[in-house]
C-alpha cells in the first residue's frame, strides 16, 4: 500500500557556488540565477509552477523581510501561490510536499538561501535559543556543538582523531563537487572550542539552493529518472539542552521510522551534520551500515550556507538518483543547536 495519497518526486535541483563572501550581490541577485537554472532543467516557466515555498532567515544578513525582496526573482507579481518558512529550505520542501499531497498543486518550486557574510553567524545563532535561560549567556553555535562532542567522547563513541577523519573524508569527497566551499585537503587547525578544531566545524558562507517537485506522471514527463520521495517526516527534541541525551538523536530515529528508512537498505546517505561529531550521532540514529556512502557531496563540512544546507542534502540525494548513481537514498536536514530538529526523507529511483 502506498504510504501517501500522491507520488511526488524531486525533478530538478540547482545550487550556487558556495562562497565566503558575496558582497557584490544582494540576496535577490544571488538567488535569481539558481531559480532560472532549476526551472530551465524542467522546461517549466515561473508562471507554470503551482506553489512556491522559500526558506531563509532575516537575522543572517540583518535585513528585515529580505524574503519578500527575493520573491522578486520568482516573478511573484501578479501574486502567486507562495509561502515562506523562517527555517532551512528542507522544511519549505516539506510544506510544498504537503501542498502537493493535498491536491492543491501539481508542481512546486522550493528555494532557500543564506547570506551569512554580513554578520557573525556564531553570534547570530545565539538569538534562536531560549530567551530566558540560555540566550543571555550568548553560547555560540560552535560552543554548543563542542558540548555535544565532549559528551560523545566521554561516552566512548568517538575521539578527536576519528572526528578529524570525518572532516578530512568530507572535504576529500567535495573535491568532486564544484559548488563546495572547502575542497580537498584542509588543515585540521587549532581548537575553536575544545574538543572541536577548525576542521570539525563547517565553513561560514553564502549560498542558494532550489528544487522543483512534481507529482505522478507530470514528474515522469519533466524528468527522465525522477527521485521519488517515498517517505518524509520531521521531529524535534525537548528544547532544553540539559534535558537531552546529547549523544543520541531520538527525533531523527522517529522521523526515520515514519519515513520508512528501515524498511529496506539505503545505498547512500546525505546527512546534514554541520559538525563532524554530529555525523557520529546521525549514523547511529539512522542505523547506517558500513557500506553506505555518506555525504559523497562533501556534506555541510564542505559547504554550509545557513538555511540552504539542509535542502542541499535532499537536492544532492535526488541528483544522484537523476544521474543513476544511487537507487535508495536517505536525506537528512537539521536545524537548531546540537541537532535540535531533524527532517528525514527517503528518495528512490524507479526500478529498471
Amino acid at each position: 500500500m502506498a504510504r501517501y495519497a500522491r507520488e511526488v518526486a524531486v525533478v530538478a535541483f540547482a545550487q550556487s557556488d558556495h562562497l565566503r563572501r558575496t558582497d557584490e550581490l544582494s540576496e535577490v541577485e544571488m538567488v535569481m540565477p539558481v531559480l532560472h537554472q532549476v526551472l530551465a532543467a524542467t522546461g517549466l516557466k515561473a508562471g507554470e509552477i503551482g506553489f512556491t515555498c522559500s526558506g531563509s532567515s532575516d537575522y543572517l544578513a540583518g535585513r528585515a523581510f529580505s524574503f519578500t525582496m527575493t520573491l522578486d526573482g520568482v516573478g511573484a507579481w501578479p501574486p502567486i501561490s507562495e509561502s515562506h518558512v523562517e527555517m532551512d529550505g528542507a522544511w519549505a520542501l516539506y510544506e510544498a510536499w504537503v501542498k502537493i499531497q493535498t491536491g492543491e498543486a501539481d508542481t512546486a518550486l522550493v528555494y532557500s538561501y543564506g547570506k551569512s557574510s554580513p554578520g557573525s553567524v556564531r553570534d547570530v545563532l545565539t538569538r534562536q535559543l531560549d530567551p530566558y535561560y540560555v540566550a543571555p549567556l550568548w553560547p555560540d553555535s560552535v560552543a554548543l556543538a563542542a558540548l555535544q562532542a565532549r559528551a560523545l567522547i566521554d561516552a566512548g563513541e568517538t575521539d578527536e582523531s576519528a572526528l578529524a577523519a570525518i572532516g578530512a573524508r568530507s572535504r576529500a569527497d567535495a573535491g568532486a563537487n564544484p559548488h563546495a566551499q572547502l575542497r580537498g585537503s584542509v588543515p585540521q587547525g587549532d581548537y575553536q572550542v575544545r574538543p572541536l578544531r577548525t576542521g570539525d566545524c563547517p565553513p561560514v558562507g553564502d549560498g542558494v539552493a532550489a528544487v522543483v517537485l512534481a507529482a505522478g506522471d507530470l514528474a515522469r514527463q519533466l524528468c527522465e529518472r525522477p527521485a521519488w520521495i517515498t517517505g518524509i517526516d520531521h521531529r524535534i527534541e525537548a528544547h532544553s539542552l540539559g534535558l537531552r541525551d546529547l549523544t543520541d538523536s531520538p527525533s531523527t530515529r522517529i522521523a526515520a521510522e515514519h519515513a520508512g528508512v528501515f524498511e529496506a537498505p539505503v545505498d547512500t546517505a546525505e546527512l546534514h551534520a554541520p559538525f563532524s561529531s554530529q555525523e557520529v550521532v546521525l549514523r547511529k540514529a539512522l542505523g547506517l551500515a558500513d557500506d553506505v556512502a555518506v555525504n559523497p557531496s562533501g556534506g555541510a563540512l564542505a559547504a554550509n550556507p545557513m538555511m540552504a544546507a539542509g535542502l542541499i542534502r535532499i537536492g544532492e540525494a535526488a541528483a544522484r538518483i537523476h544521474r543513476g548513481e544511487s537507487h535508495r537514498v536517505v536525506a537528512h536536514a537539521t536545524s537548531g543547536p546540537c541537532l535540535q530538529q531533524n527532517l528525514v526523507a527517503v528518495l528512490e529511483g524507479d526500478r529498471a
Partner: protein
Amino acid sequence: MTAASPPEILRAPLIVEFPFTRSLGPVQSAFLSGLRERTVLGVKTSDGRVMVPPVEYDPVTAEEIRDLVEVAATGTVTTWAWNDRPRSQQPLDTPFAWVLVKLDGADTALLHVLDAPGPDAVRTGMRVRVRWAAERTGAITDIACFEPYEGPAGGAALPHDGDFADAVTGIVAEARLDYVYSPGRAQTAYINALSDRRTVGERCPSCHKVYVPPRGACPTCGVATTDRVEVGPAGTVTTYCIVNIKARNLDIEVPYVYAHIALDGAGLALHGRIGGIPYDQVRMGLRVEPVWTEGGRYPDHYRPTGEPDADYDAYKELI
C-alpha cells in the same frame, strides 16, 4: 542607456539592536526571583524527576507542572567545552569552560560557564558550585559562573512555595548584532549615481518597466533588470498624505506632506517630502523637482517646478 558594469562595492556598518521585553509565567518568575535571592528552584514532574532550570510543561507528557522544589547550589559537570577566546557578550572575559551542570537534587542539567584556570582543570564529573553575581536582578546571569568546589554535596530537593517579595515578572533581553552591509549590484549603482545628484533606475529587459530605486529584479518577469536608465530629475506627485505627528529624531516641523512621486521616465513612484509650498496646496498631479542640500546623500525634499499640473491620465498607472 548602458549595460551595467560591476560597480565598486559599497559597505557600511549596520547595527541591529532589539531589547525584547518578555513576561514570565509563574515557574520562570519563581526561578529567576529565586536566583536574585541566591536560591535555586526546580520543578518536580509527576514521575518524580526534578528539572533545573524549571519548565512549565512536562516535555514527555505535556502536563502542566507547578510543583516547585529547592535544590543545592552545588553540582556535577555532565559535559564541558573549553573556550579559549571569549566572545564579547559572553559571561566571562577570560578563557572559560561552557558546562552543563546537574545540581545536587536535580535530574537535569543547567547550561552555564565555569571559571577554571585551564582545560586541564576541567573534566566531566567534576564538582562545582555557583558563584553568585554581586548585583542580582532576577536573571540567569545572577549566576556569575560556576567554580570548582571540593566541599560536601547538597541533599535531595526540598519543597518550596516559590513566594518571594517583589517577585520579578519580566525580563528585558538585550541583543545587539553587528553587520557590515553591502547593498548589491543594482542598489550600489543607484547610490553611486545619487552622490552625483542623478537618479538612476533599471529597465526590465522583458516588460521594459523602469524600476526606481532598482532592486535588481523585475517582480513581474522574475529576471534581472540590467539596463541602467537615468530618470527625472522632475516628476509628478501621484498621491500624498499630510503628516501631523512629529517623528522622534526628525528635525521637520509638522504638518508636512509626504508624497509618492513618479520621476519622469520611471515605471513606479518613489516617496519623498514635499516642501516649498504650503501643505494644504499640495495636490495630485503637482510637478516637482528634487532639492539637494550640501553633503546630502539623497534629495532633502521635492519642491514645485512651476509647470502646469500633469494630466491624471499621464500618471494614473503609477499610483
